[in-house]
């Protein structure tokens, strides 16, 4: 290399290094910004939502008074006033309270769930009738919010949802150790409710589970079969090109369009029930299908032709080539695609709004055609509610949803790593 060439190269070298440094810094900056946003999001979410996993309970000495719940000798589960048992127990702690207004305020400290809990206890153990028992009963959401610091007791009484008298009672309960935050089991065992302290995600979770089940059962085999046909058997011509382009387009169609399609085809035309996980699952299958087909085709394409030739050369039929060699080798890729498609489906809410899964549903669905809602829709519903106590539940439900999404993606990664074929 001559002197002048060497000079030119080294002159350029400094510039190249500078460019590289700038590029690296830009990349680092972009990554940092992304991570900061993610951290802020998680801190905010967990800060807001984690309190929903604990719930305020009141400790009361409840007398299962036969005169109230079993006036005719046997317990009247339908019409007996179980709330009265709880009310009487609370009144026993504050005998000085009298008059309709003050008593109503006192009763408002308890959740309507208190009566249900006492009824369930009696159903489980009929011997309790006539006995007195110490029970932790759910407090109303106002008490809960006060306990969690979401209600400012120092502002004017007319501006808060808790009266001064109620504040005093709450104070008294707390001093005697009768008010405590416990693990909020109801959040995981209850369906939706108008009362925030009773609202849980069980119904939405089960609804989402049924839908994903339908999606998996439909979209995975259909998607894999379509991918195998397109890759291994279909002739390459204008038609297959057209199909390919359309599948790719389908993957990019806004999800709400699939909801409209589901409404028109499954509900209006096929007369399937509204709000049912079956229809939701069908719609989500349509949504997931292109993702699975594309991922499966990529996985099939990645199987080296030399393996196909080896099998063909030994006299394997094309079916045998596919099922003995191509399928097993591309299965990890197919499953990864399926899981990614499913996790997308799990997070979808827009198409479900179209098919009526946005209704207020208290009961946990027992089957594919029961009215149900889904986790993201439940989040949407709660986020829309005015009560302060629904805000923490919204965040908590988001945490649960994200937890499931992360779990599914983790499974996809592990699956890929585990079954990856080294050539």
């Amino acid at each position, binding site marked *: 290399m001559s002197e002048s060439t060497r000079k030119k190269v080294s002159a350029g070298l400094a510039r190249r290094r500078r460019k590289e440094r700038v590029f690296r810094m830009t990349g680092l900056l972009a990554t940092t910004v992304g991570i900061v946003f993610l951290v802020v999001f998680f801190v905010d979410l967990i800060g807001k939502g984690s309190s929903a996993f604990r719930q305020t309970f009141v400790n009361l000495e409840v007398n299962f008074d036969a005169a109230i719940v079993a006036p005719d000798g046997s317990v009247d589960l339908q019409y007996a006033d179980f709330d009265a048992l709880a009310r009487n127990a609370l009144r026993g702690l504050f005998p000085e309270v009298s008059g309709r207004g003050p008593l109503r305020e006192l009763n408002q400290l308890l959740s309507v769930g208190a009566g249900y809990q006492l009824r369930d206890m009696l159903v489980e153990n009929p011997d309790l009738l006539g006995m007195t028992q110490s029970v932790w009963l759910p407090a109303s959401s106002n008490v809960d919010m006060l306990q969690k610091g979401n209600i400012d007791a120092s502002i004017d009484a007319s501006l808060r949802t808790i009266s001064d008298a109620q504040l005093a009672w709450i104070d008294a309960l707390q001093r005697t150790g009768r008010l405590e935050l416990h693990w909020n089991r109801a959040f995981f065992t209850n369906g939706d409710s108008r009362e925030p302290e009773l609202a849980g995600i069980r119904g939405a979770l089960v609804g989402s589970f049924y839908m994903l089940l339908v999606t998996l059962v439909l979209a995975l085999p259909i998607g894999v079969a379509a991918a195998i046909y397109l890759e291994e058997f279909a002739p390459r011509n204008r038609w297959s090109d057209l199909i390919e382009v359309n599948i790719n387009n389908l993957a990019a169609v806004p999800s709400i369009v699939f909801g409209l399609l589901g409404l028109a085809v499954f509900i209006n035309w096929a007369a399937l029930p509204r709000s049912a996980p079956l229809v939701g699952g069908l719609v989500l299958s349509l949504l997931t299908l292109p993702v699975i087909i594309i991922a499966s085709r990529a996985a099939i394409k990645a199987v080296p032709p*030399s393996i*196909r030739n*080896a099998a063909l*050369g030994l*006299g394997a039929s094309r079916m045998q080539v596919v099922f*003995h060699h191509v399928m097993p080798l591309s299965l990890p890729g197919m499953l990864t695609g399926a899981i990614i498609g499913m996790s997308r489906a799990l997070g979808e809410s827009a198409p479900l709004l179209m098919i009526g899964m946005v209704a207020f549903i208290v009961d946990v669905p027992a089957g594919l055609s029961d009215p149900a809602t889904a986790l993201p829709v439940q989040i949407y519903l709660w986020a829309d509610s005015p009560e302060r106590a629904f805000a923490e539940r919204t965040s908590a439900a988001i945490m649960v949803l994200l937890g499931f999404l992360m779990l599914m993606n983790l499974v996809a990664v592990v699956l890929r790593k585990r079954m990856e*074929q080294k050539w």
Partner: protein
Amino acid sequence: MPDRMAKANVTLPEQPSEIGKTVGNIRSANPYIVAENVNVYYGDNHAIRNVSLEIGTKEVIALIGPSGCGKSTFLRCLNRMNDSIESARVTGHITLAGTDICSKELDPVALRARVGIVFQKPNPFPKSIYDNVAYGPRIHGLAANRAELDNIVHTSLERAGLLKEVIDRLDEPGTGLSGGQQQRLCIARTIAVDPEVILMDEPCSALDPIATARIEDLMYELAEDYSIVIVTHSMQQAARVSQRVAYFHLGSLVEVDETNKIFTNPRHRLTEDYITGRIG
């Protein structure tokens, strides 16, 4: 510019008149495969031009020629592997021990059990060594029970000269073997189906000289039982293993003759140019 075209035609060796007709002897004393007027087209690309060739029983015939002259394509005609290439179209007449193998009625699956193939790059299945060899017998139902299958696997590995090296790791993946071992595994896999003809497409070009020598030794032994058609880029290899040599050029079969005649006294100028290293 017709002038320049004409001139180019004179100087270039691929002038059609020069390679249109095969010189030497395409006949075999005891033919097993008879190919007549075979033409292969890939779309508009006329890759094999009117090739006729007889392949003898238990004969080793080497196909030589520059890259892209159609050796692999012709080889694939012999077990219908061109079927899976969508643009490929084959015309002509090929018989295997009297059966027409180009006819639509013939199931290529049955044909490929009779005509095995070994590829350039060793391509064992990502399965165990045992399963690699057992795959063919399994899909064709050649073994009635496990003992018979074991027997087939062992004899095939033995004949491929691999048994000693792998006897105590039959359930390890075939992809974990060395390149030469993998290629012998592929040969074992092919002979496990008990074919009549073995096609080999440059079986040693991805191997080192020692592995190559082992495969060549193997070919001597296999030639006692099978007809072997081998594509090779190595003139030495062709000279060592084959009884006859066929020289292809631009899709035409230029010259076929006994190996020593081709290498000592080629009759066609193109053959001579090739074996003396002037084209290739």
